[in-house]
Structures are given as C-alpha cells and as structure tokens.
C-alpha cells in the first residue's frame, strides 16, 4: 500500500513539474488577427499593410520576439463586407484566441469591430480606415488608429492651402462620407486660417463615377482660383486621368488628399497630371533619411515593389505592439494598453507618438506637388512641405466635444 502511495506522489510531482516547465520551453506566441479586404480594388492598399507588418514581425521574431514570445499573425478576408468581416473577427477571437485585432480599410467594418473589441476587451489597432469617428466620437479604451483620418487630412490640406494666394475656391468630391468629411474639414479650417476665401460652388459625384470630364469642364467654366477635390480610393485614378485629358491641372490648380501617394500615381504611370497639390503620410523617397531608405530597401528586397503608404501603417503597428509589450513587462491586455498610451516609436518618417487621450497616432502630413521624374516611370512629389503632427491633430477639446454628442 505504501508503495502505491509513493507512486501517486511521484506522478503528481511529475505532472506539476511538467506544467511549470512547459511555458519556459515553448512560450505561447502573441497572436494578432488581421481582418481586412484582400479581394477587389482595396487590396492595392491592404496588401502593403500586411506585407510590411510581416516584414517587421519577422525582424522582431529573429531577435527572439518580445518577452521571449514570438509575434504571429493570421489574416481573414472581409471582401469589403461588414457582416463577413465581423464574423471573421468573432471567429478570430473565439477560435484563434488572438490577443490583438488589426485592420481594416472599410470604415463601417472598422467601427463594427471596434464595438466588438470594446465588449470583448481586446485591443483593436485600426489600419487604413480614415473615419475620424474611430478615435473621435466612437473612441474607447480598446481602439487605436494607426493612420491619419479625415479630420487630420482636412487640417493638413487647409494648413497647406492657406499658404497659397488663392481666394475663390470650388469644392468637388465623392457623394459619400469620406468625400464630404474631407471637403468639410478642409473648408472649415481654411476659412479659419484665411477668412477672405470664398466658395463659388460645389459638385458631388457618385462613388465609382466612370467619367469625370463633364464635371471638370463645368468647374472650369466657373473659373475658380483653385479647386478642392475630395475624392478617395479608386476614383482618384480616373479623376487624375480626366484632369490630364482636359488640361485641368494646367489651367486651375487643385488640391486632392492622397494625390501624391504612390498608390494613386503608380497605376497612372507617366499619364498622371503634373502640378497637382496632394497630401500623404508617406513617400518611399521622403523624408530622405537613412531610416526611411533602409525601410524602403528592405521592403523592396522582400516584395519587389516600392512601399506605399499602407506599408508605413503596417510597419509601425508591429513596432508599437512589440514596444508596448516590452514596456508592459508581461502579456497582459490592460498593461499593454496602458503602455501603448502616450508611447513613442521610431519610424521611417521619424518618431511617432500615440496620443494617450484618443489613441490616435500623431502623423505628420507631407504636402507636395506631382512632377515627372527622370528615374521612375511614375510621377513623384516635389517641393514637399512637412506639416507636423500636432498641427494636423484634432485638439483634445474637439475630441471631448465629439464624444459628448
């Protein structure tokens, strides 16, 4: 009987040792679940986020990961549909047991996942949705924005345009939340910075408008000093094409957020119009710093293409995750969030800070003019002016006001 007793003790001791031992040998990886649209036109933007995220996590994992854990990620295609994306996010939480959610380019889906993240208490790092509601009106403890939003674009556009002598403006854009948000943002801020500006008129077209020629000829016949074009995503390309065909850019200067971005200029090749005023968060050739050069080179070596703006978002998201876990000292969600608030990281565009109050990364914005370049087949941005992050950001009072609503 005594022998049997000893056997039980030995077995129990063995089990206990085994269970204590395992975490040391095979630490569970930190798992990130990315829900984004990987089919259809938006994938031009989202593939860069994912690829740069992978580039950054590979580098972190090579050095042994964070807290002795590796960073892993899984992706789910939302097909740009809110219901598919939401169920994918739920599946990632329940079956894949992800620690962090990330994505998505679709603003309605981003807001939906943000609600889910709040309920499930899982951090959600938004990449590419430009709705200002994410960190504004609908902001909460578990959601973070890793890219600029419409308010920031509006402030940046206004700050840049205020330096020009134009007075009589025409406003045109997508008849859709993004278009109206950008246009209102630019106009409201421009009016504050330069009270003598006048609005001659507005034109609004449907998203996916096939032919912009009649809109452009109608705008030109009103003879404005400059035009604010609030169009986004896939409409930028045909708009710029029509602008070149009608000679719009040669007659009236116009501003379009993302006009100088590689995602817009690349598909047009040398067909893109010159002299268009644009703003962007990232150019692989600007700022001309060793950090940016190294990042662009790594990305190009890995994927055979130049990094677009999405690559910056993916890269800094991985960097923020790794640094926040390190600072938190252990893999705990609440500690991770506390660490992330107010944290700064080094990035290809210089140090970036995560504002503690609204969880918005304080991106600087680069305003430039499109110009043909001798070394590339696509146009590049020149005369780039940096509009610093704190000028671009909505004030904390504005956020407070939006959240009170």
């Amino acid at each position, binding site marked *: 009987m005594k022998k049997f007793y000893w056997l039980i003790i030995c077995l129990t001791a063995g089990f206990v040792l085994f269970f204590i031992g395992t975490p040391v040998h095979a630490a569970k990886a930190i798992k990130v679940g990315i829900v984004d649209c990987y089919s259809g036109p938006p994938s031009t933007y989202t593939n860069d986020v994912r690829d740069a995220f992978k580039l950054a996590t590979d580098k972190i994992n090579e050095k042994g990961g964070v807290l002795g854990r590796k960073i892993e990620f899984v992706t789910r295609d939302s097909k740009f549909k809110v219901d598919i994306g939401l169920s994918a996010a739920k599946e990632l939480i329940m079956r894949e047991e992800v620690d962090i959610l990330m994505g998505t380019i679709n603003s309605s889906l981003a807001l939906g996942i943000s609600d889910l993240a709040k309920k499930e208490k899982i951090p959600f790092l938004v990449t590419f949705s430009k709705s200002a509601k994410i960190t504004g009106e609908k902001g909460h403890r578990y959601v973070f924005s890793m890219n600029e939003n419409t308010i920031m674009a509006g402030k940046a556009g206004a700050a840049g345009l205020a330096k020009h002598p134009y007075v009589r403006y025409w406003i045109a854009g997508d008849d859709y939340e993004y278009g109206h948000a950008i246009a209102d943002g630019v106009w409201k801020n421009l009016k504050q910075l330069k009270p003598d500006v006048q609005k001659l008129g507005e034109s609004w077209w449907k998203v996916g408008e*096939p032919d912009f020629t009649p809109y452009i000829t109608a705008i030109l016949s009103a003879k404005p000093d400059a035009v604010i074009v609030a169009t986004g995503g896939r409409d930028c390309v045909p708009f710029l094409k029509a602008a070149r065909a009608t000679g719009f850019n040669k*007659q009236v200067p116009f501003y379009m957020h993302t006009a100088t971005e590689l995602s817009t200029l690349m598909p047009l090749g040398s067909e893109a119009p010159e002299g268009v005023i644009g703003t962007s968060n990232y150019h692989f050739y600007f700022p001309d710093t060793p950090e940016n050069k190294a990042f662009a080179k790594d990305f190009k070596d890995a994927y055979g293409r130049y990094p677009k703006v999405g690559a910056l978002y993916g890269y800094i998201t991985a960097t923020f995750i790794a640094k926040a876990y390190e600072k938190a000292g252990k893999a705990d969600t609440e500690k991770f969030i506390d660490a992330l608030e107010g944290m700064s990281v080094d990035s290809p565009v210089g140090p970036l800070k995560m504002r503690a109050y609204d969880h918005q990364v304080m991106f600087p914005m680069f305003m430039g003019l499109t110009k043909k370049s001798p070394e590339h087949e696509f146009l590049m941005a020149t005369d780039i002016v940096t509009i610093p992050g704190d000028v671009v950001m909505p004030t904390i009072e504005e956020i407070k006001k939006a959240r009170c609503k």
Partner: protein
Amino acid sequence: MEFTSNITFIALCQQLLVGLSRTTILFIVASGLSLVLGVLRIPNISHGSLYMIGAFLTYSISTFFGGGPTGFWLAMILAPLSVALISFIMERGLFCHLYEREHLMLLLFTFSFMLVFGDVVKIVWGSDYRSLSPPEIFQGSVSVFGLPFPRYNLFLLVIGPLVALGLWLLTNKTKIGKISRAAAVDREMVGAIGINVSWVFAEVFVIGCFLAGLGGALVAPTQNITQGMDHSIIIEAFLIVIIGGLGNIWGALLGALIFGLTDSVGILVWPQFAIVFPYVAVVIVLTFRPKGLLKSVW
C-alpha cells in the same frame, strides 16, 4: 440663385459636346443590348461583363504590342472581335439550347454569366486598376469655344455617328438584317420558309456582343479599367433601352441622348445634385410613355 451665375452659352455648348461623347459609349453598348433583346428576346445581363472584358482586353492587347499607336489601334479592332468570339461560343454552346425557355430562366442564366465573367476577370487580370493612354494624337485637349475639350472625346464624337450609320445599314440594307427583323416578329414563319433561324440568332447575338466589346474598347482610355465597371454600365444600358423602347435600336439612340445630355447639363446647372438628373429624366419618360419613347418590339 447662385448656381446660375456661371452658366454662359459657351459653357452650355461645351457641356453638350462632352455629354455627346459620353452618349456615344452609352449608345454603342445599349444598342447591342437592344438588338439582342429585340431579336433573341434575351435580357442579357452579362452584356456589361462583355463590355468590361472588352476594356481589359484592350489594355492587354495594347500593352502586348508595346503600348504605342499601333498597339492601340490593333487593340481597338482585336478586343471587340475577341469579345464577339467569346459570345459566339456562349451562344452556340449554351444559349441556342435555351430559346424555348421562359424569360425568367434566361434572365437568371445571363445573370450567372455575369458572376462567372466577374470572377474570370479577377483571376486573369487581378484586382489592380489598369490604365491605358490614348495614342499621342488624342492626348491633351483642344480649344473649343475657348474652353478646353479633350481630343479623345472629339474622336468619340466621330465614332458615334459612324456606328449608328453602320447599324442602320445592317438592319435595313443587308439580308441578315431583314431576316432578323422578320424573325423578331414571327420566328416560326421565318423558319417555315426555309431559313435557319438558329444561325440568324447566333449572328445577331455576336453582333450585339461585339458592340459591348467595342464600347469597352472605346471607353478604356478615358477611365480606369477595373472590376465593377460591368455593374454600372449594365444598369445604365438597361435604363436607356427601357426608355427608348425595348429592342428598338433608334430608341437606344434616343435614350442614350437623353441619359447622356441630362447628365452633363445637370452637372453644369446644379452640380450638387447632378447625380439624380438622368434618373429624373427616366422617371419622367416612363410616367408619360410607360412603354418607352419609340415602338417596342415586345
């Protein structure tokens, strides 16, 4: 009324010209749809997909031949012909067995083709945008009434009447045109006098789809070639066919003119709400002429 201040006579004329060049594309696509609808009685929802394939093929053929003027002109000819070939296979392989079925069945069948073609385009060309430049002589703009007008749109203004003339000659002066008009009215009678109706149908279907391909080829240099161009065009083409009178090619011309011109003039007159103008025109036409402006063959 703030919005009327910038409307001058010149601006209006120019806006009408821009509208006419858009009308050209709409007419070419809608007339093909109308032809198939009138003779074969097939509401071909995949017509828009053939238009999209035409545009993608134009891009691919043009870049294959180096992207210069030669490539462009070859693409303008070869892309619609390739679309015609695809439609020939569709008709001989599948549609010709289904003419006796109900319209609803045919409608669902063409709808499934639209989905299949949409995915085929995604597999072959991927999800990126494509953009094609017109040859050097059509780039940039010329001054018309002192305002800039894209050269390529002038080219479209020449093509439109040519296609209309060609269609008129085809339906009125050729044997196949006459037979197809007769077959549209009474298929059995035409068959009874010893004409192979099935082949007439095949020819008409191929001509109709050729027009879709031609529309796609012509539109390629003016916009970005992308998935989803099939959906927007098919809705507009059906609206045009309906207001013009089902199956009537001249109805398609009239419908395209109404649609294209209200769109462009609306943009000048009331730019904030321009989107609704062509649809308001459709509603007005259908309220007063529910069967369309011209005689419907249905």
